[in-house]
């Protein structure tokens, strides 16, 4: 069986998705800089399923400042801003359990399928939701 599979493997395409580039770039950071400049394109990732737990989206207008999300968050992601009665989320700490989404009484929080969150700076603007 193994031999049969191995030989058929020679003729079939790889099972893995070639992400982020079709061929390994010489320098990954260089490649990503090129992507930012628009000179190169990212080989697309496999789309996430519809109810994927990705980065949390926050609807500022809906939020009533009840702080329930802060009570249930297991990773202390959420910080309360008392003067505005709104919250700030540090996505770098998030464990993507989406318990805050379940607990929110006014549906101000929602899960999004966004998962390309890697960054060298944990306080970069993309990783702070407010």
């Amino acid at each position, binding site marked *: 069986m*193994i031999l049969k*599979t191995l030989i058929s493997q020679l003729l079939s395409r790889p099972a893995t998705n070639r992400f982020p580039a079709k061929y390994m770039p010489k320098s990954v950071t260089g490649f990503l800089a090129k992507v930012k400049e628009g000179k190169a394109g990212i080989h697309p990732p496999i789309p996430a399923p519809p109810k994927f737990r990705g980065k949390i989206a926050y609807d500022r207008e809906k939020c009533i400042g009840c702080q329930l999300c802060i009570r249930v968050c297991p990773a202390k992601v959420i910080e309360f801003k008392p003067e505005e009665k709104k919250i700030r989320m540090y996505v770098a700490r998030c464990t993507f359990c989406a318990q805050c989404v379940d*607990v929110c009484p006014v549906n101000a929080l929602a899960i999004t399928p966004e998962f390309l969150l890697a960054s060298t700076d944990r306080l970069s603007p993309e990783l702070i939701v407010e």
Partner: protein
Amino acid sequence: MERNPEGENLEYGALEEVFEVPIGPIHPALKEPIRFTFQVRGERIVDVQIRTGFAHRGIEFMGMRQGRNLIQILYLSERICGICSVSHPIAFTQAVERAAGIEVPPRAQYIRVIISELERIHSHLLWAGVAAHELGFDTLLHLTWRVREKVLDILEELTGNRINYAIPIFGGVRRDITPEQYPRVWEAIRYYRGLLEELLDAFLRDPTVEARTRGVGILEPKEAEELCAVGPTARASGLRKDVRQDRPYLAYSDFEVKAITPADYGLTPVGDVYDKIVVRLLEVGQSLDIIEKALENMPEGEITSFPKIPALLAHLKKAEGEGLGWHEAPRGEVIHYVRLVSGEESPLIWKVKAPTYSNLLSWYPMFEDQEVADIPIIAACIDPCICCMDRVYIVRNGKEETWTKEELLRLSWEKTRRMRR
């Protein structure tokens, strides 16, 4: 060539000498930190000492004493083990539900069973791949892990995460299986049904695998029983021991789970590594059966008895009592003990026993009189999860300390008195 003090060349005599070979705590053959010290004569292992305690994370303490409430601890318990990431929450929620007197609706029980059986499939396939890798058969590792992706995709579809599913919550589950998702789960079941025979063929009828695993790391049934081995480690020795069969919980009594031993494959159980492969691969089939039955007989109704989380938190804060939760994780029996006091958000006591803790001692008879080259596969064959089970190791003034049973008992009495005050 070793020479004895008289300076005489001992070509055969050298084999009589016993050498010490330390492996670990950090070693390429090990996936997690643990230290084995082997006494080796020639290529044979004479004796072994095992030391744990390199990766104790104090998760129980974090849960008990750092002001977390039970919902936050639920996600902490999920992170005890990355592979058994639904087994620990299932045991923990059961313990808390017993302590607080919370009922779980039947549909939620079925969903928990389905997720935990899917997890068993992915864990056993992962182990089979690791075993192939430890044997030096990396082709098989890549083939096994390629087919494992399917079950991870299904778990991602059903729960939203590939691992750390965040599905059980006290009183039910957080996500229902929607009608659109059924066909995808059925498709995955058919995929693995067709594949199982191929996997059995690739692992069990392969001369290389057989030569490397037959008669290696034998755990006699008597030893397995005496050392309280659990899970596939015990079942490979022919013990019909399975928590799902012995003390059914959740909806498992509906499926009449029977513990699988190599006898079900027409083999006489020996308890070697080969038998452990047999048991784990057959359990993939068993899990498929359970998921099929669960999908067919899925009851309608609520998925949680506490749809409002603030109400759940208030109920848990009032609750007082103790509870024990158990679950057959892919590696064996996992137990969580919880004691709640009313008015406190965190539990007074939270005790976790991960399956590897019970299986550690079975390493001693397994290593006895084995080849040095077989150390990686024997170490891997109980599917060890060192961080999950690790305990405190006391080193004071640079010296290791051993505490006897009497001293530990005295300490636990003192602690109980302190807490009653």
